[in-house]
C-alpha cells in the first residue's frame, strides 16, 4: 500500500488498516483473452460508406427503444425544502463545531455559563439540530449529501480537514443519516 494511503487509513481506522487492501477476487482462466474476442463480435463493422453495417435498419428500432426509455424515466426533483434543510444541518454542524473549537481553546476558563461540549450527549445534539428546523434525516443518504456538498461553493472553500474532524466527532448514526 502506498505510504499516503496507508497513513490515512491507519489514522482513520487501524481496524480496517489491519485487514489490508487485497480483495480475494479471481477471474476465470483465460478471461481477458476471451474478453477481447467477445467484444470484437459486438464491435461495429463499418461499410464502404463509413457507416455501421445495417445502420438504417437498426436505427428505427433504437429510436423507438430510446423513446420508450425516456418516457419511463423519472426525474428526481430535489425540493427546495430539502436543499434548505440540508443547508440547515450543515450550518448547525458548523455552529456546533465552532462551539467545540472555542471550548477547546478556552478550556482553562470553564465557568457555569460556558458550554461544556462533553456534557452534550448525542440525543441533545439531535434535539438542537431539530430545533434549527433541520430536515427529516431519514430522507438523507450520503450520496445526496455528497452531491449537495459538491455543488455548493461554500463547501468547496470550507470542507477541509478541520471540518471533517468536527463532523467525525458527531455520531452520525444518531442523526439517522445511514
Amino acid at each position, binding site marked *: 500500500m*502506498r505510504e499516503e*494511503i496507508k497513513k490515512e*487509513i491507519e489514522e*482513520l481506522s487501524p481496524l480496517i488498516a489491519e485487514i489490508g487492501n*487485497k480483495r*480475494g477476487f479471481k477471474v476465470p482462466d483465460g478471461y481477458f483473452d476471451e*474478453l477481447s474476442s467477445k467484444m470484437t463480435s459486438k464491435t461495429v463493422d*463499418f461499410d464502404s460508406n463509413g457507416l455501421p453495417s445495417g445502420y438504417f435498419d437498426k436505427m428505427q428500432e433504437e429510436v423507438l427503444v430510446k423513446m420508450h426509455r425516456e418516457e419511463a424515466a423519472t426525474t428526481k426533483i430535489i425540493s427546495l425544502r430539502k436543499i434548505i434543510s440540508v443547508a440547515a444541518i450543515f450550518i448547525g454542524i458548523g455552529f456546533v463545531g465552532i462551539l467545540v473549537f472555542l471550548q477547546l481553546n478556552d478550556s482553562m476558563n470553564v465557568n457555569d455559563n460556558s458550554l461544556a461540549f462533553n456534557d452534550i450527549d448525542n440525543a441533545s445534539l439531535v434535539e438542537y439540530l431539530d430545533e434549527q428546523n433541520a430536515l427529516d434525516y431519514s430522507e438523507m443518504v450520503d450520496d445526496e449529501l455528497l452531491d449537495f456538498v459538491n455543488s455548493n461553493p461554500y*463547501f468547496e472553500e470550507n470542507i477541509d480537514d478541520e471540518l471533517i474532524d468536527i*463532523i467525525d466527532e458527531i455520531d452520525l448514526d444518531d442523526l439517522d443519516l445511514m
Partner: protein
Amino acid sequence: MALLTDQEILDIITIEPNRGYRLLMTQYQEQLYWHIRNIVTWHEDADDVVQNTFIKIFRNLDRFKGDSKLLTWMYRIATNESISFLRSKKRKQTDSLDGDYSISEQLKADQYFDGNSAQLILTEAMNRLPEKQKAVFSMRYYEEIPYAEMSKIMDTSVGALKASYHHAVKKIEEYIKNERRD
C-alpha cells in the same frame, strides 16, 4: 506489448476503427475490469458492466476532448456504468431470493472469491454503502487513486470526496465491530 500513447490509439482508431478498438481494449481492459469489479463485487456483474463500458467508450470517442488522460475519461464512464448498474440491480432485487442470503454467504459460495474472513467482512460492509460512496471508498482504499485524480473521474470536489471517504471508513469500521461482537 509496448503501451501506446493516447494519441497513437486515437490515430489508429481514425484510420482503422476496428483495429484501434481492439488495441484500446487490449491495453486497458484489465485495469477497467478491476476498477469495475471493486465496485460491483461479482465477476458476472463486472463482466456485463465492462462490456457495456467499452461499447459506450467506442460510441463516444468522438466526444473525448483530450482535456484529461484517456484512461481518466474511460474510468469516468466505467464508474458511472458501475453505479448505474448497482442502482438498477438494487431496484430489481426487492423480490429476488438473493436478498435472503447475506453477501458473506454468497461470497463464500462464489468460485471467483478466495479471500479470508476479514476480507469477506470488509466486502460485506462495503456493500452496504450507498453506491457513490462505495465507489469513492473502492477507488481510494483498493485502487489507491489520489483525490485529485478521483475528482476528475467523479467530477466531484476533493473536499467532498475526502468527507465521503472518511464517513465511509467510519461506517465500515462500525459494521465490522458490530459483526465481530455478535
